[in-house]
């Protein structure tokens, strides 16, 4: 039985939850804290890979990204942001009450945190369902299949036929995705990714180029949106699809971390209910809190980068 050189004490008081490899709780708390921070650092690197992919494609195709972003509903995104921030508050309060050994308040705060977390996921479900219904999931077959009933297709409000020389189209700017989503029903027999909302951001940029003489398209865009010198809506759609691919991978991975967070909360709730945590031993609550705050802060970055692009392009 290992003991410190020079001490003659036989009896050591072990704080509840002290693991065998540690000398005292302070060492244990310090260790798990550094451990959790290191874990969060690697999580940052994990999401960082996606952020760098986002960076590359947004800097190449800003108009397509703005176009796609305009069709994410900032109401739901904003609501989710608020929900997560409040859930971080309730999580911080959980730690606060755990430090004071207040079992009932701990449990209440954990339950509230879980409710907010579930709300976040519910809102994401609403958003994803909307994308499914409108053919905005990037994978063929993963969107709602709508049979082609032969009814008149939504007349192109956007680009001219690809053979014609480039003509500035006459369009009205749309205000919200909700409006455009309810008006026309486009056939989608294969459940493909479809872009039926025109190219308003692109049109706006072209117009600004003509009127101001300054460049509003990147070099990549001058190649990437055009075929044979004419605007190619299919190529434009491809870049918008990349936006939605990145949107789904990033928010999907974030939602997965949220689900894991809820799992952690379930365990924490069970442990808190049993009165495990007190002023002597509350590190697990603190560490769970760190994880929760991390998931929150990833969303804080995701929301503006995905939802708030190019809002100033269109009249609101």
């Amino acid at each position: 039985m290992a003991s410190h050189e020079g001490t003659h004490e036989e009896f050591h008081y072990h704080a509840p939850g002290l693991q065998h490899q540690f000398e005292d709780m302070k060492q244990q708390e310090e260790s798990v804290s550094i451990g959790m921070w290191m874990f969060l650092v690697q999580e940052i690197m994990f999401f960082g890979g996606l952020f760098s992919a986002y960076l590359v494609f947004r800097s190449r195709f800003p108009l397509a990204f703005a176009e796609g972003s305009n069709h994410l509903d900032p109401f739901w995104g904003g609501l989710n942001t608020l929900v997560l921030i409040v859930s971080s508050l309730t999580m911080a309060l959980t730690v606060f009450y755990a430090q004071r050994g207040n079992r009932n308040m701990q449990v209440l705060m954990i339950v509230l945190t879980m409710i907010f977390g579930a709300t976040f996921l519910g809102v994401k479900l609403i958003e994803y369902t909307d994308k499914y219904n409108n053919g905005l999931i990037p994978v063929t077959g993963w969107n709602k299949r709508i049979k082609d009933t032969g009814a008149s297709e939504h007349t192109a409000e956007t680009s001219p036929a690809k053979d014609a020389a480039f003509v500035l189209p006459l369009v009205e700017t749309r205000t919200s995705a909700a409006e455009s989503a309810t008006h026309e029903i486009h056939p989608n027999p294969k459940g493909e990714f479809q872009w039926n909302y025109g190219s308003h951001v692109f049109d706006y940029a072209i117009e600004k180029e003509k009127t101001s003489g300054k460049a509003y398209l990147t070099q990549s865009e001058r190649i990437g949106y055009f075929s044979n010198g004419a605007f190619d809506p299919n190529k434009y759609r491809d870049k918008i699809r990349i936006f939605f691919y990145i949107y789904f991978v990033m928010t999907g991975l974030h939602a997965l971390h949220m689900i894991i967070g809820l799992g952690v909360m379930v365990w924490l709730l069970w442990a808190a209910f049993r009165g495990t945590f007190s002023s002597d031993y509350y590190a697990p609550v603190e560490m769970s809190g760190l994880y929760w705050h991390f998931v929150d802060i990833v969303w804080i970055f995701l929301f503006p980068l995905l939802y708030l692009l190019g809002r100033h392009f269109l009249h609101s």
Partner: protein
Amino acid sequence: MQNVDAIGSADLTGPTKTNYLSNGFTLKSWLLTKDHKRIAIMYLITISLFFMAGGLYAATIRLELLTPDTDLLTSATYNKVFTQHGILMIFFFLIPSIPAVLGNFLLPIMIGAKDLALPRINLLSLYIYWIGGALTVYALLQGGVDTGWTFYTPYSTTFSNSYVMAVGLGIFINGFSSILTGLNFIVTVHTMRAPGMTWFRLPLFVWAQYATSLVMILGTPVIAITVLLLAIERTVQVGIFDPAIGGDPILFQHMFWFYSHPAVYIMVLPGMGVVSELISNFSRKKIFGYEFIAFSSIAIAVFGFLVWGHHMFVSGQSIYAGMVFSFLTMVVAIPSAIKMFNWSATLYKGSISYDTPMLYGLGFMGLFLIGGLTGLFLGSLGLVVHLTDTYFVVAHFHYVMVGGQVIAYLGGLHYWWPKMTGRMYSEFWGKVSAMLVFIGFNLTFFPQFILGYQGMPRRYASYPAELQVLNIFSTAGASVLAVGFIMPLIYLVHSLFYGKKAPDNPWMLPGLEWRTSSPPPTENFEKMPVVTWEAYEFGEESGLDLDEARRRESVTTVS
């Protein structure tokens, strides 16, 4: 009882105490253990199996390359063979090797702790390694992958008909094993050091593991996300790497190499840590430039993240990017050079004993020198255009990875074998196989520098007929190298049953790991040490009994 005043008095006749090996014989006591030493032994067995599997693939490659024609294998099969050689050796052997085996075993002992900070995370790391490895092996048995270990798009996403997803998933899972080990080491070095064990009294092996752990934590998640994106794109055929839909295949290369370059530092830094131990201890001289070596490990870890573009000089990245990466590649060589100079200075006027571990340590110095210098050739913009994707590159990375880390790993394994197993291996056979490894290695890979310079492309099953002679040398060398690798397997296992029982301190050295029994008890020390001496102190201040040291020959010479 350990008495720090007379660590030389090896008690070989006393009653056998419980050690970590005899503390429980059931399968459950091993599979559910929290003991870092048992986890290290389980890693040792597993990575040895992967090394043999990767070695079989290597043998197949060398056999095919005996003749200029594609006669032994079809090109399609050859693609799978070199891919799988790379994947097994890199992800399942080299990256875990020293950290998971020697690091896991020794790190807590070297800092005077009972265990790592997070033993259950350590066990989880092992389980994840087994799961990732099992999935990958399963995929290889089903038909394998042929994309090259680099998985370049769009071949891997769109055109390859092999098990990219399964192997990718195996690598993804395995990455978490790496991350958790690194995380554990960082926490442990920060919080578990014994009283008196300050940062600058740490053995340089610990500094090297710490630097490696930084790379593991920061780099591995990036390969994880890259492989994930690759898998998604392969499954749904939509993604960011396919140029037909607006994606960028070079983005894959950037993301891939952003991890895979630091990964090669994971595959050399631990080896350098071992070599610091070997050179100092077998010269019986305090290492020269301790702080320089310690900080150079950190510098390599940091700068290693800035040079990934040197794998992409001919990929179409801008010439300005090429210039920056080339310059930084030269810079990252400097800390490694600092180590080489410090090791050389340590040898100077040292009392050198040419035991097996020292032979490996010296071998590392020579082979890493060649490997490192040829890396500089490859980092020069002018030369790299001629040498890219030739056997010159193959020779370079085998010199640093095999001539470097594998040789250091073998050296460390021999050095710490008495501590880990409580047995002495056969010094004669150790020396013989060290020489065979050195000779075989050079015979295998030196001709490949010449072959590459003469234009032999890598990853091809055939080559121009005039290059056959050098290829034959290379294959002949590979057979010698194979013998050199197989021999330790035999005599080390033999020593487990018939080897002389090892004393606590068979090499008569001052390190903390030599102040506990061989093998150590489960809690590492009977009494937790209080450190009052500097690292690598060979004088009496460290408690080393010099008379015993002079009698060392009679204690350790075994047949």
